[in-house]
């Protein structure tokens, strides 16, 4: 039996005789009543979505899945393609399951795939990823949420737009937190 803090995005839970992939998990300590985790889940067999709330005393069956290093290849319609570098086997995963993480993928990027019964059911992207800046216009004051004094929008090699310090120039490499989408630091090569 697992504890509720182990319920995370990407894990597989056995629930009512079906297997569900957790697509989002939110931990709440509401002050009233004991802490709980709300998990958004998708059935691996039917694709049907559901939401469950687990408390510390609840029985949660997290299914062990194998983790395998995969390389991101390309997006084709509603699917992302990845390659297993050992077997050269290609795996496809629905864009819907990849979700918001899709925007952080870049050519050749290494990710971890969760393998269940021979197929990839989820991917985990690194918490921080380096990107080359392909476009970095000077900061324009007044047209963004920020003050415009310290940060500006930059476009990265995979098309992702992020906020970065105004001193960042085209061609430089920056580190992005893939959890928040926020700039971490400049990488000096």
């Amino acid at each position: 039996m697992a504890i509720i803090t182990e319920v995370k995005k990407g894990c597989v839970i056995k629930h009512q005789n079906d297997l569900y992939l957790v697509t989002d998990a939110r931990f709440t300590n509401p002050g009233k009543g004991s802490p709980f985790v709300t998990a958004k889940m998708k059935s691996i067999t039917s694709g049907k979505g559901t939401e469950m709330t687990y408390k510390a005393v609840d029985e949660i069956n997290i299914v062990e899945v194998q983790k395998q290093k995969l390389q991101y290849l390309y997006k084709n319609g509603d699917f992302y393609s990845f390659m297993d570098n050992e077997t050269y086997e290609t795996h496809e995963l629905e864009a819907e399951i990849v979700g918001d993480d899709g925007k952080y993928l870049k050519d050749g990027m290494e990710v971890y795939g969760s393998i269940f019964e021979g197929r990839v059911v989820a991917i985990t992207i690194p918490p921080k990823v380096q990107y080359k800046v392909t476009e970095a216009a000077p900061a324009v004051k007044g047209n963004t949420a920020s003050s415009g004094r310290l940060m500006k929008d930059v476009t990265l090699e995979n098309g992702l737009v992020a906020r970065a310090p105004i001193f960042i120039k085209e061609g430089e490499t920056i580190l992005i937190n893939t959890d928040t989408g926020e700039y971490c630091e400049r990488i000096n090569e």
Partner: protein
Amino acid sequence: MNHIYHVDRNFKKLQIRFAILKLIREFLWQDKFIEIESPTIVALPGQEPNIQPMQVVVHDDKGKSFKGYLHTSPEYTMKKMLATGFEKIFYLGKCFRDEESFGGTHNPEFTMLEWYRQNASYYDLMDDLENLTKFINKKLKFNNKNIAKKWKRQTMKQVWQEFIAVNLDDYLDSKKMYKLCVSLGYKPAKTESYEELFYRIFLNKIEPFIGKDVPTIIYEFPKCMASLSKEIKGGKYAERFELYYQGIELANVYTELNDAEEQKKRLQLERKTRQKNKRLVYPIDEEFIDALRAGIGNCAGGALGVDRLVMIFTMDKNIDNVLGLPMSKLFNKEK
């Protein structure tokens, strides 16, 4: 520079935040409320069974140490003030609760508006909350139509009827609530308290759906879930309400219990639950009970989560974006 970048990213949202703090004060001052201060370090914090205070150690000039806690709410201090004759008071400042998530709808250090009105009931505070939020909506030129509309007010009994088609009157003890949980497919432990069982259903089947469009006040809570509030005639429910909007709980309000002995009894029970829940345990603040003995009159008091209110006006889903420096970035855990 991460702390500074955080501020810069949220520059406009923080401007809105500080404007809201100013408007809250203006609104209450117009109504002759006095802004009071409460010590944030207390010797004996509240006894709420699921709220964990943060411990601090203070040393005097001779090096003698004293164990204290950061207040989880200014309630006790404010009721001590009410006992001396203060009539309309508010606190707008920080409160602290340990073991909360860093981000989402929580931050361990958060801003609370707590306000008390003498010779009033929780109905008066429903009006206060509605008028205050509408005042901010107008002054900020946010002009959200749903906030400007007449708010919905429903009893807890009505929402249980509406969302799960049961009469809450029939489920006011743990045994019956346990059976209801089981019939709805939950697997609660036999030892769970009434409140735990209640929230299993409420948090899953009811809370996410209330106040989706129009701010909604849910009032009349089962008596055993309203430790500091006045009982309603009939003895089943108590005068407590919560405000919900867009699936978030924004405020919690009571007609205050003013019976010192009853209050002491309820706090002793809560203290026992804390022991059972393995929370920090400390004595009951007898000075607070003394305040009730001296008399706090017929008053009502409420607590509004100011950060969450700001989130409504900045249309944010994460509290971090409306804080100058959220706990998630304070320790630079990322590095």
